[in-house]
Structures are given as structure tokens and as C-alpha cells.
């Protein structure tokens, strides 16, 4: 009676996803980034076959926004066809990034793919050896936003021993992301499902163990905010027990590490530090590195100001071959004592002090006006989204910094 089923729970494939890259990345790296979501999906298919799962769940966001590219669809079809050969079913729903009404060039999937095509909760019965083994519930986003409490609409039906609910949405309390189809874990308990397969949140997390209420996260990190291993869960489920095993699928990972640069005196020493940071990584796959340099000397800021830091990053990155376990220094953060003390400077009547005071009084409108020559340029507005408040703040801060650095950076030049 205790018939177990095994399935893969995945979500947020974001196939052919575009990456927020820094400037001037080499084309090899861009290729690697571009193909990463596909590679991760290919691994998902391989793992499904290796683990001999009964079926695969994909809980929304198969595509990334407008980029429901033909290639992504063809890739999906190809992968699903492989599963079909192995007799593995696929149950998928669409999420806020690939909502139904935004679909373009629809390609038909093989018959083993069961799609939740409605905005209302529907269900499929999965048959194993000719007997109903599980009922799978789900819905798709018809439009970009779903703010209803979809969880309330799930009703357990008869006809199968196991009940699995697919839901693309977020905890009501989670305001880090767009809150779609909000729910409380308590509401899910009431629905008496055997497994809640969630999607939408890209960081894997287990909201509840019994019954399992799980986000598998996305299958490929796409920015330093989506760091660490990414993949899916293979789930063994019966009426009394559930076991989830995480399977990494990512083509590369975003990682963060910190190196100490306190005793550096010369910028050329940075190279060694970067290499040191790369060596310290404990992954067996390519890495996009978010590096934090720590120092108290104030030199790091100065080097950055002068562009020498960027140069050294470039030098180190250029030496990467992209053959296998490459590490690309994506971003560098600096934690260092500034070469000047803002508060100290502000006390005097001298010009820098006046400039600091002035900077504090800059209004948004003024800032906008200063930026308008570029930011309101017709072409630029076409390709560059408006800067966020944070970015503007950051720009102002940077502007103040470089002005003052330049104003007072006499020592370097005088010697």
C-alpha cells in the first residue's frame, strides 16, 4: 500500500535568462553565461533520467520575461522529448515571468508534458503501473500579477493516495520580492496536501518539513544576489514519509569571498591577493566571484579612484581561459578607511568643507537636472532604465568622493 513515488521538484528555470553583467565582458564569458540556464536544464533532464523519477514538476517561470525565446522553447521541447523516451511525465505551470497571455511563438510539447493552462486550480492524476498514484494540483499565471490568495482555492480531491500541490508565489511576509499569490504556511497545513511544491523564490528553502513545503530555488544563479549552489530536489514521497535530496544543476555559481589587503603598499600586489581569493574558493565548478577587499590603509579607495584597481582586476580576469573551472572576478567591494575624514573636513571653512556641506543640500531635482543631458537623451532612455533612488544616492556619494579625492589628492602628485 505504501507506494512510493519519486519526482523532481524544480522551479524558476528562467531559460535564456539575460544577465546583469559588468561592462566589457569577454564574449567567451558571455557565451558561458548565456548557455548556463540551458546547461542547468540539461542537467535537470539528465538527473531525472539517472534517478529514474516518475515525473518532473516545474513550478513556474520556465522562461525569463520577454525572452520566451524560440531557442528556450525548442530546448525545453528537446529535453521533454528525452524524458518522454524514458517514460517520465512532466507537470508544469507558468509563473509571473512567463504568464500565459504573454506567450509568443508557441511550440508544442510532447504528450508526456501536462500543462496547467488555467488561472484556476486544476489537477492531473499521475498513474503509476496503471494505478492512480498521485494527484497533482496547480495553476498558471494568466497575467503578470496574481495577488489573490490562491492557496485558499486548493481543494483536496479523491482518486489518488498522494496529493501534491504546485504553487508559484510567496509568503505573505516575504517583501524582499514581489508578493504574488501570497500564503501563510498555516493555510497550507489546513489543505492536507502531502507535498507543497513551491516556486518564485530563487533561494532554496524549506518552510515546513511535515508536510514538506519547499522552494527548490532556481536552477542557475544569475547574479551575485543568487549566490551558491542552485538546482532542484529529488523527492521520495509516500503517505507517511518524505525525503528530499538536493541536486545541484548550476553551470556556474556566484560566490563571495573576502581577502585582507591591509599590508598592501603597491597596487601590483593586488594580483597576488586576487589569485589568493580565487584559490580560497571551495567549489568544483566555474565561479562568478564577488570579492571584498579589506584594508585600513585607505589605499584601496585611492587605487580604485585612480583606476589601478580596475586595471588589476582586468589583468587577472584576462588570464582566465574559460576552459573549465574558471573564476571570474565579477565585482569588487572595498572595505577600507577613507583617505580623508568627511566629518573632519566638514568642520572647516575651506572649500572641501564647503563642498561637503553643499553635497548634503543637493536636491533630487537638481541631481536630475545635472544628469539630464545623458539620462534624458532619447537613445539612452531607450536602452538604459531610469536610475533608481539608490543608484542616484550612490552616484552622489561617488561624485562627492571623487571630487574631494581629486581636490585633496596632492600628496601623490607632489611626490
Amino acid at each position: 500500500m505504501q507506494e512510493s513515488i519519486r519526482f523532481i521538484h524544480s522551479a524558476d528555470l528562467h531559460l535564456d535568462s539575460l544577465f546583469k553583467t559588468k561592462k566589457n565582458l569577454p564574449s567567451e564569458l558571455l557565451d558561458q553565461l548565456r548557455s548556463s540556464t540551458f546547461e542547468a536544464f540539461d542537467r535537470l533532464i539528465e538527473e531525472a533520467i539517472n534517478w529514474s523519477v516518475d515525473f518532473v514538476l516545474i513550478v513556474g517561470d520556465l522562461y525569463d520575461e520577454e525572452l520566451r525565446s524560440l531557442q528556450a522553447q525548442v530546448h525545453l521541447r528537446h529535453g521533454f522529448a528525452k524524458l518522454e523516451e524514458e517514460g517520465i511525465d512532466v507537470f508544469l505551470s507558468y509563473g509571473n515571468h512567463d504568464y500565459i497571455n504573454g506567450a509568443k511563438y508557441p511550440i508544442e510539447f510532447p504528450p508526456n508534458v501536462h500543462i496547467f493552462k488555467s488561472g484556476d486550480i486544476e489537477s492531473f492524476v499521475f498513474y503509476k503501473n496503471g494505478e492512480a498514484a498521485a494527484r497533482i494540483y496547480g495553476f498558471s499565471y494568466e497575467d503578470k500579477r496574481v495577488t489573490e490568495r490562491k492557496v485558499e482555492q486548493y481543494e483536496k480531491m479523491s482518486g489518488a493516495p498522494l496529493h501534491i500541490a504546485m504553487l508559484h508565489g510567496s509568503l505573505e511576509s516575504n517583501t524582499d520580492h514581489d508578493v504574488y499569490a501570497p500564503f501563510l504556511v498555516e493555510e497550507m497545513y489546513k489543505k492536507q496536501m502531502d507535498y507543497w511544491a513551491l516556486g518564485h523564490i530563487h533561494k532554496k528553502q524549506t518552510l515546513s518539513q511535515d508536510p514538506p513545503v519547499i522552494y527548490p530555488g532556481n536552477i542557475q544563479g544569475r547574479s551575485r544576489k543568487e549566490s551558491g549552489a542552485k538546482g532542484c530536489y529529488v523527492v521520495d514521497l509516500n503517505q507517511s514519509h518524505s525525503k528530499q535530496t538536493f541536486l545541484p544543476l548550476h553551470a556556474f555559481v556566484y560566490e563571495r569571498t573576502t581577502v585582507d589587503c591591509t599590508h598592501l603598499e603597491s597596487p601590483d600586489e593586488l594580483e597576488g591577493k586576487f589569485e589568493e581569493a580565487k584559490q580560497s574558493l571551495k567549489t568544483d565548478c566555474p565561479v562568478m566571484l564577488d570579492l571584498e577587499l579589506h584594508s585600513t590603509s585607505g589605499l584601496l579607495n585611492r587605487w580604485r579612484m585612480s583606476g589601478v584597481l580596475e586595471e588589476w582586476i582586468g589583468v587577472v580576469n584576462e588570464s582566465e581561459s574559460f576552459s573549465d573551472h574558471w573564476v571570474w572576478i565579477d565585482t569588487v567591494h572595498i572595505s577600507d578607511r577613507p583617505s580623508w575624514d568627511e566629518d573632519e573636513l566638514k568642520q572647516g571653512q575651506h572649500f572641501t568643507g564647503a563642498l561637503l556641506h553643499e553635497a548634503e543640500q543637493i536636491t533630487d531635482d537638481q541631481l536630475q537636472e545635472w544628469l539630464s543631458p545623458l539620462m534624458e537623451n532619447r537613445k539612452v532612455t531607450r536602452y538604459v532604465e531610469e536610475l533608481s533612488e539608490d543608484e542616484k544616492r550612490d552616484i552622489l556619494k561617488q561624485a562627492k568622493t571623487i571630487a574631494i579625492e581629486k581636490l585633496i589628492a596632492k600628496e601623490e602628485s607632489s611626490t
Partner: protein
Amino acid sequence: MRIMEAKIYGFGKWKDQTFAFDDKPLTIISGKNEAGKSTVHLFILYVLFGLSPKQREFYRPKTGGALGGLLVVQLEGFGRVTLERVDDLRGGEVVCRLSNGEEYGEDWLNNHLSGMNRTVFESIFSFTAADLLKLRQIDGHELGEVLLNIGLTGSDHIYQTEKWLMKNVNDRFRPKGRKPIINQQLHRVDELNQERITKQAEVIHYESLSELKKEKEAQIARAESEIYSLYREQYSYEQLQKALPILTEYHQYKDMESTRVVFPEEGRMRDQQLKEAILPLESEAHLVSSQIETIKLKRESLVNKIAEEQLFSRAGKLLKQEQEYGRAVHEMDNLHQRAEQLRSQVLEELSHLDIGLNAEELTEFTFPFHLEDTWRSLQEESRILNTEEEQLTDQESRLRGEKESLSDQIHSLETDMMDENEAYQIQRQIEETLHKENMPAGHSAIVWNHRRITYSLLAGLFIMIGWLITVLTNEMFYGILASVLALLPIVGAVRSHAQSSEKPLPQQNQPLSIEEWKKKLHNYEQQKYERSNLVKQWKAANHEEILLDEKKRSLIQKGSTFEMAIQEQERLYPFLTKVSIDHWDKLFHLFTRVQSKQMEYEQIEKYIMEKSAMINQIKPLMEKFYRDNKWEWDEQQMPFAFDYVRNWFDKQQQLRKDWDTIDQQLKEAKSHLNDVSVRLDALEKKRDYLFSQAQVSDEEAFYRQLKAYEAQLERDKNIDRLTHQVKGMLSEEEQGLFRVWEDPPHETEVRIRLQESNERRKRLEEQLRSAQQQLADTKSDISNLESSEEYSSALHELESERNTLREQAKEWATYQVALHLLNQTKTKYKNTYLPQVIDSAAIYFNRLTGGNYKGIHLSKEEERVVVEHKDLQWFDVEELSRGTKDQLYVSLRLALGKTMAESTPLPFVIDDAFVHFDEERLGEMFRILEEVAVHHQVLLMTWRDDLDRYFKQSSVQYL
């Protein structure tokens, strides 16, 4: 702040050296080049602001020992404060020791330097010959601007920064530019976007390609099926071509027959068979006809010999009567004898009976079968009635006697008996006397009474039963027997009564003893009882008499009934009156005997009459026959007449038999002939039918028709053969299509059609190949599109470049904001401090130029400094002589320092700045310095050793 003393532990060339600066406002440190003036200057900066590691390394004493030292400064509000900075101690941080022994660090010092860092300090409070040298490198328009900035900050940093920022901004973006990075990047992104749009169009093209693919597939399927049918058509035409000669022959045959010859199946044979059957029948018919003629002749000869049928039948009838006639003649004799005999017997017996009847009357009476019984029973009844009458008379007399005897007895008893009253008296006396003695009396009387009742009941019963039976049976005997039986009980009863009443009670009237009374009474009782018995007996007898009377009446009734029956018989048979009833019985027998004889007689008489009548009937018949036959009649010949007639009759019979035979023969022959002709008829009809089938009327025509028919059969065979051949070559559909049986196409036409079909097929095949190629291309295009990463790559590339653009835009924004911030600050700063600085500077400039220049102004655009000559003419800074430029610079620096020092009183450190001043200007310069030094300490470092002569209040340290 005022620096009192500098104690160097080790710094550059100085080691364990102390410089004391006295109270005089101006301190001159004089020494030759390379004497270490700048090192002292730097040492002071080192203690106040620290140095970069590189510089520290540079100034580390070559002879070893610690880098560092201390300054003793006079600080307002704190007095003497020692500031010690040693590189190896406390991480190179400064230690500030107050006079009260308190120690503070870097922050404390910074606080008292009023947010001054080395750069700012140097730009405001310290200037060197190098600054002037640098100034000289600035040319043209820029100088005014630089000097303006110097007026603002004491250095050209603002200017440099502004330039730098401007360059960064412009290098990145110019609204109309092409070369700046962002302009280029924009161009690149634009291009990539165009590329993306093109690629996207390709992807959109995918859908139309899918449509095209479907269309082509359908087109190919259509073409293939069409080609297939064309192949078939071509084959059909080829087959038709082959079949055409056969069809020509076929149609030749077809054309030959105008009208179909009709001929019966197997006509020839059937005609032969009919002929063979008809011939013998015809000869047989002929034979039979001649036979009939012969028979007819024979029959003619017989006809004359045969008598008339009426005669012949009359002879037959007569002959049948012959035997009857003979028998009648014979019987007549016997009958006559018998009649005579019977006549005599009857007459004899009648006379014997003597009942007054003649013979003829005898037969008038009929004697029904029961008459004898009636007569006998009447005879019996008469006897019984007589007997009963006697009995009744006897009984009557006996009863009368008995009654008389009983009346007598009663009468005698009554006379002997006391009367009732007396008996009652006696009784009362006895009862009174024998009050107690209650003797049961009358017991026997009661018994008697009982018995008597029994007997009389029994007697009554007998009588009743008896008479009942009598009535039922109508037999007097039972009634009588019953009455007799009834008497038996009565006799019994009387007898027993007689026994019991032997002792009657004596009748006594006299008063007697009780016994006597009793005896008397007893007697009385006995007598009384006896009397009642007798009365009863009398009554019974009386009753019997009544019954007897009844019987008598019924007897009389019977008698009269009987008499009526007798009279009835006598009426019917009157002769009975002449005979006593007692002989009726006998009479019956006798009478019936004679009657039957009389009846026999009469019967015989009747027979005789009948026979003679019959004889007399036959004779005239015979006579008539004779006469009709024309024979001679003689009555005497009557006995032989029958023989004669029989002889004639037999002859006639023979003749008739012969006639019948011949007639039979004739009939048979005719019937035979009939048979033959019927068979012939049938055969003739068959033959006629045969001819009619062949639509001819005679045999000649029939055979002509046969010949034509045979020719037609041959043709049909050929047509069949050809048809078969064509059908073997062309399908049914093709036969219909080409109308081969009706109007086959001409060979030329077939050839043309074949050619056309062939060409059409080739064209189609060409089209098919083309469509297949197109399909393959389309499929390949689709496959390419599906597998193509171009669009995706383009998108990603575009995105990457957009990201770059964005990064660049943000960088630009940073510089742009910095630049504007700088400018804005500068504008404000200019408004706040610049007038004051410029005013002061103008005074210094005036003094230093010996009154040649009376003022310093800002240009109209306020972006640079201009000077006013004493003749009111304004000059751009670059127009001034080098010396004047230096003076202007120094004036601005001093003015700024002086202005700043009002809020931040720090010492001025001037290092060989006036190297190039002439004596006059130098003197004035020092006077100004002395004026300044009144309020602010001034450290003047110079290579000259003769400066003390310029100063009134100064201390000089010679290195």
C-alpha cells in the same frame, strides 16, 4: 596655534636636532640649498598630519634610529602642548601631551586643526617656491582661472579637479559627439538592437516557415497523388492503344448485323424430330379410316334384321310374366278346394255355438289381445263379489246377535247392581270407619284397564293395517284377515277380563259390619267394572257393525262398477248377452277359432280373385303382341305362346349383341382415329410454333432462316472473343471512360492524349521535385532557426552592451555630478569668501606692485581674475609680467591665508616663496609678513641669510 619648538628624533638628514622658535611672530629659518629647510618644513607637516608610508620611508634617517620627533606648540586655551609622532610607536599616531599631563591622540589634534588636513593646510597656510614655479607653467586664459581658484583655496586643485572632471565627463559623453565612450557605446547598442530586431524578425519568420512547411507537405502529397493517377492514365492509354485493332475488328462485326436473326434453339434438330414423329401417325390415320368404312357397311346390314325396340321389350316383359302365369293357373285349383273345406267347417261350428251370428258376421268383431284377460277377470270378479256379499251378510247377523247378547248382559248387571249414590255412601262410611285402614282397592281393575287398553289397541292396529293393505291392494281379503286378527286380541281381552272379574262386588244396602261393607263395596266395584267392560264390548261390536256397514257400502259400489264393465262388454259384443258370464272364458276360445277359419276363407277367396285377375291380364297382352307381330293368334295356343315368343326374343337378342359388337368396333376405330389425329395435331402445333419462333411460315423459309442464323452465331462467337480480349486489356472503368463499346477513340487521338498525359506528368514531377526541395529548405530553415542561437546571442550581447552602457552612464553621472557639485560649491564659496579675500589681496597687490595696480576683480563671467592698473585699465592675468604674476599669486595666497586664519589660526609656513622678488618688493613683502605675523605665526624658510635686516621683530635660525 603657535609652534614653539621642533625636536627632531630623526627625519631625513636631521637627527636629534631641536629648533626653538621664540616669541617673535616671524621666525626665519635660513640655510643654503640642501641645508634641510624643506625637511624641517616637512617634519612639521609630518607631526601635524602624518605621512604616507612611502614618504616615511624616504625620510627615515639613513644612519638608523627612529623616524619622528615632536613639536611644542602654544595652543589657545591649553597653553603648551607637546605633539609627538614617532613612526615606530603607536602605529605612527600622534600623541598630544597637555601641560597638565593629559594625553590625546590623532582625533584631538584633528579637532584643533579645525578639520584641516595636510592638503588643505598646504594649500592655505603653506606655500613654496615650487608653487610659483608651477604657476609659471600655466599660460593664457587659464591663469586667471587658476588664480581665482587660488584665491578660493590657495591652490589650483579646484581648477585641476574641475578640468579633470570636465575631461572625464566629456570623454564619456557629449550630446553631439561621436568619439566619447558613451556616444560610441550608444552607437554600438543601437547597432546591436538593429541586429536583434533583424534576428527577431527571423524568429517571427519561424511561424510563417511552419505554415510554409505544412503547405509544402500538402502540395507534395497532392502532386504525388496526381502523378500516380497520371501514371495510371498513361498506362490506360497504352493499353487502349494495344486494344484498338481488336476494337476495330469488334466494331466491324458489330456493324455487320442490321437486324438480329431470330431462330429457335436447336431448330434444325427439333424440326427433324417432329417430321419423324408426324409421318407414321399420318399413315396410321389413313388405315383406321378405311377400317371404319368396313365396319359401317357391316352395321348397315344388321339394322334391317333387328325388330323394334318396343316390341323387343314387350317380349321381354311377357317372358318375365310367363312363370307367374303358370303358377297362378296351378294355384287356382288348390285355393278352390281349401275354400270349400273352410266354408263347411265354419258353418258347422257356428251352428254349434248358437249365438245368433252368421259366418259373414264373424269377421265383424275384433278381439283385442287383452280381451281374453278382461273377460276372465270379469268372470273372477263376479265370483268374488258374490263371496264377499255372503261374508258380509254372515258377519252382520253374527254382530247383531252379539250386540243383543251384550245388551242383555248389561241390562242384567244394572238391575243387579246398587246405585252409585249408595256406593258412595258406603264408601264414605268405610272411609270414616277405616280412617286409618287404607286398603288399596281397585288394583286389579287398574291392571285390567291397562290390559284392556293394550288389547283394544292391538286389535285396532290389526284392523287398521289390514284395511290399509286392503285399500292399497284393493283386496278384500286383507281387510277381512285383519279384522279377524283384530278379533283375537279382543277375544283375549275379553277372556282375561272374564278371569279377573270373576268376583264382582256384592251389592249391599243394609248397614252391615265393616267387612260386610267392604264386601258389598267390593262387589259393587266388581260389578261396576264388569259393566263397563261389557259396555266397552258393546261399543266395540257397535263399532264393528259400523265398519261392516261401511264395507257393505263399498261392496255395493264395487258391484255397480262391475255391472258397468259387464254392460260395456255386452255393448261391444252383443252376442255375449246370449252367454252367461261364467262361459265367457270358453266362448272366447271357440269364437276366435271359428272367426279365424272364416277369416282364412275370406282370404283365400281374395287370392282366387287376385289370381284370376292376373291371368286375365296377361292373355290380352300376349294377344296384342301376337297381333302386333302379325302373327296369327289363337287362344288355345296360349300355353305355347310363351315358347314362341321366347324363341323370337332370343333371336332378337342375338342380333342385338352382334350390333353392339360392331358398334363397339366402330367406336374403337373412331377413337383410335381420334387419338392419332390428336397426336398429329399436337405435333403440327409444335412445328407451327417452331416456325413461328423462326418467324417463318413454311419449312423452306425455315431452312433459309437457319442458314442466316448460323452465320449470326459465328459472328457472335467472334464478337465474344474480341470482347474477352479487350476486357483482358482494359479495366471496366477504362472501358467506360474510353467508351470502347460505343464509340472508341481514334488511334491518333489516343496517341495525342498519351503524349499529353506524359508531358503533364513530367511537368508535375518537376513541380514535385521543386516542392520537395522547398520543403527540405524550409525544414532546414526551421531546424536552423530552432537550433540557432543567433537571436539569443544577439539578445545577450545587446543586454551585455546595454549593461556596459549603463555602467558607463553611471560613471558619467558620477563625474557629471561631481563637476556640478564642484561648480556649485565654487559659486557659493566665491560669494562668501572671495570678496573678502580679493579685497585683502588687492591691498597686498597694490603694495607689492608699488601702487601700479590698484585693484583685483573677477571677470564678467566670474570665472577668472583680472587686475586693475592704476590708470584704471583692466588686464587679464596672462598679460602681466612674471614678477607681477608672482606678486598677484602671493597676494592672493596671503589674503586667503589671512582670511582663513581668522577662523583657523594656524601658522604660515613659507618656503623660499619670494626667491625672485627684487629688494623693493621683498621689503614690502616682509613688511606685509610682519603685519600678518602680528596675529599669526609665520615660519619663513629662505636660502638668504640677510633677511633679518628687513624685520624688526624676528628671530632667525641659521642652519
